[in-house]
């Protein structure tokens, strides 16, 4: 697995992936600055789902998982 930090390409991939499959939405307003970012929480959610080590960051394992071929249905259903 690559040990280098995520590239810009990985960041874009992660953004798209989390929006599509883990319901990541745009962060706006002052609440976004409190506590871990929504993106970090969504990364953690994804890592939990796939049984990866939960770091909340885009580590190599997480990026590798994001690149695997998969079904287009979200893993987390939007709340209704």
């Amino acid at each position, binding site marked *: 697995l690559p040990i280098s930090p995520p590239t810009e390409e990985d960041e874009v991939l992660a953004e798209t992936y989390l929006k599509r499959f883990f319901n990541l939405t745009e962060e706006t307003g002052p609440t976004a600055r409190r506590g871990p970012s929504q993106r970090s929480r969504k990364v953690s959610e994804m890592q939990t789902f796939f049984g990866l*080590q939960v770091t909340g960051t885009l580590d190599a394992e997480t990026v590798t998982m994001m690149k695997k071929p*998969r079904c287009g*249905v979200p893993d987390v259903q939007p709340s209704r």
Partner: protein
Amino acid sequence: FTTFDNRKWQTNQVTYRIENYTPDMSVAEVDNSIERALQVWAKVSPLRFTRIYSGTADIMISFGTRNHGDSYPFDGPDGTLAHAFSPGPDIEGDAHFDDDEYFTFSSTRGYNLFLVAAHELGHSLGLSHSNDPGALMYPVYSYTDPSTFSLPRDDVNGIQYIYGPNPDVNPNPDKPDPTPPSTPDACDPTLVLDAVTTLRGEKMFFKGRFFWRSYSQSSTPQQNLIKTFWPGLPDNINAAYESQLSDRVFLFKDRQVWALSGYDIVPGYPKNLNSLGLPSTVKKVDAALYDVDSRKSLFFVGDYYYSYDEEMKRMDKGFPKRVDEGFPGMTSKVTAAFQVRSFTYLYSGSYVFEYSMRTRRQLRVLGNSYFLPC
């Protein structure tokens, strides 16, 4: 498993229609793949499927690329392979396949349409994604031989949670249906591992179709399907070991052995067991390890073990020896083995026996969870 808020078809008689075809396969192959994918679910539920050729079916099946008319565009080759909608009117229940993928009927190239369709049709019937890596409804594609495919336990539980069991199943109790395969659980105290090995600092634990990877930077062992990493390797590995001499991991199944260099299968493998100096009478290796101090590979076969000199490419004289001769107190069959920090660990059933190779003394008896945390 998870469901889409319990959305389901209100009837067990569900219709489907194949609207168009991929150019990757013949019409007959597509028809057959879809039909078999539906039967995967019909076998274990009261659902019955009828194909229609015109009009609107409950499940409309189509192939398309990029923007294909549903506000969820596909993304070109790889990435997203297909998607489907949960049961309901209009577009709901429909399954769409990304025709920028290369779909196949049976080979390991491209993406097997039967496997992709069986997953998508699970959505069409009301199942969402499962986080069980062995489940069909796991979101990541993994090749399995379609000819031996059996719907995993998690998916059977899911579909039967929504629709109940198949009322027609198993009319003949003398010939029960095969049990759906379950995903092994590291927390199961009765778990008996097939094989264990190291690989450049990682530890690997094999069981059935799966293996766990464990490495020092991560506290959570990661469970994967063997086929996800190595489509060419068999399931139910018998034994494995890492040779520090050749920097290879050898994996054994029946009379064959595969070699990995890093994560790649070394070309020219599988080879016969006699390529490692084992006599032709040996039909399978139960466990194997590489002893760093003596630089010998040890192969456990029943009550005996062999010592192989990889450098000289020959079996050491005086072998095979009884296991309890080399490892006093080890009277039960060795089912897996490896060395960690110069200590030897022999697995037998769900126990792990720790030995010092210098004194040949048994030091501790441990449980599986010592190396494979629950």
